């Protein structure tokens, strides 16, 4: 190995954990960002496309996510998985773009129809994501108590923080955590099979 090489790689890039790769990216290693892209771009792009509805904006957002990540990652590998971090970040930025798009459209409509009441109906954001769920997933979810489903959906699907969920539902933070974790545990047991 050359002197001056930052870090101490025990294993080839491809077999490194996400946490190790993030460290390498923060040290400026382009190859590590490439591996992270190969692992997670389809997840990010899938969410972007699902929310924004067209490939151009989905590409822009995907690029935005990975470039932000390369420049100043606020991801802490000790606190949570990288994939969930990326999902929540992508979802949040996509919603920002949707809001910007809708408000731009709203301004346009006000110009075009001065004085008229008619304005573009603002779709509730939840209706934008219409996932067709497989039979397996539907029945797995149906096995969860409603209150667990609700919290999981708000945390992961809508990207709300647990504090925000606690506030909206007017329940303690500890209850939010317990419901989300138990719900996920139940899903894991139902959807995946023990070896």
């Amino acid at each position: 190995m050359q002197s001056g090489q930052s870090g101490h790689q025990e294993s080839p890039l491809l077999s490194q954990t996400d946490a190790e790769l993030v460290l390498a990216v923060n040290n400026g290693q382009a190859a590590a960002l490439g591996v992270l892209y190969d692992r997670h771009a389809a997840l990010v792009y899938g969410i972007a496309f699902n929310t924004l509805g067209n490939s151009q904006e989905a590409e822009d957002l995907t690029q935005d996510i990975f470039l932000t990540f390369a420049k100043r990652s606020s991801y802490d590998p000790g606190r949570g998985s990288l994939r969930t971090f990326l999902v929540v970040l992508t979802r949040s930025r996509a919603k920002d773009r949707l809001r910007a798009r809708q408000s731009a459209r709203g301004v346009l409509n006000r110009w075009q129809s001065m004085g008229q009441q008619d304005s573009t109906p603002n779709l509730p954001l939840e209706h934008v994501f219409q996932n067709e769920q497989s039979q397996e997933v539907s029945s797995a979810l149906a096995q969860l108590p409603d209150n667990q489903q609700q919290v999981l959906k708000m945390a992961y699907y809508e990207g709300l923080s647990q504090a925000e969920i606690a506030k909206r539902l007017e329940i303690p933070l500890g209850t939010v955590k317990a419901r989300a974790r138990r719900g996920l545990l139940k899903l894991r047991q139902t959807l995946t099979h023990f070896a």
Partner: protein
Amino acid sequence: MPSEELQLLIAGYVLGDLDPEEAAEFEQLLAQNPAIANEISQMQVALETAYAPPQLPPPAHLRSTILENAYPARSTPLSANRRKLLSWRSALEIAAAAVIITLGINNYQLRQTLQTAQVQPPQSEVITYVLNATDAGSAASAKVIVNPKDLEATIAVQNLPPLPPGKVYALWTVVTPSAPYTTDDKKAILTEVFEVDERGNFSQTVAVPKVYRFEDLVVKVAVTIEDANAPQKHIGSPIMITGL
């Protein structure tokens, strides 16, 4: 099978809701029992299966665009850093035209090539570069199939041995001395950096430099072994090359 208490902690990690004390505890548990990583994956899969929209591979060019923009150019204009190419491209187009006209470069062939490229579309849809190993005993081979119109290429490499940590393979485009593109002192443009899988194969569609629109300007395509943290230094000699 981990205890329910541990499984709930793993669920918390996957959901990203560990508080600092739980995070410290989890880090310890993970260090003591690396098999927990498998449980984390299972939990992650369950969460995504239930709540994430379908994964979609992005268009092929996005990968190179992101990598090139992630680490933008820093210093000397003559470095072979491929990442510089995007920011230099429009400057070079202007510079190339200016150089040819104002300095009157006596390179009739170059001028003809550029004019021909502007007037006529490329004859074939794709150009295929076949690379063979410089070591006669090696079974390594590669094909680079370029679409000059889209400036995209499919790279397919076979039978290249996996490298030790800290090293990567680099694909170089070697151009004629008079070509008006930024190259290193070996007249090469760093085109792709890659690793092979455990079978010695690599396959990817990537963006390629604009020089590929002018077939006559590309002299060789080669693969070398470089340091992973500075492939642009171009310290390796070709282990695979066209025209053998």
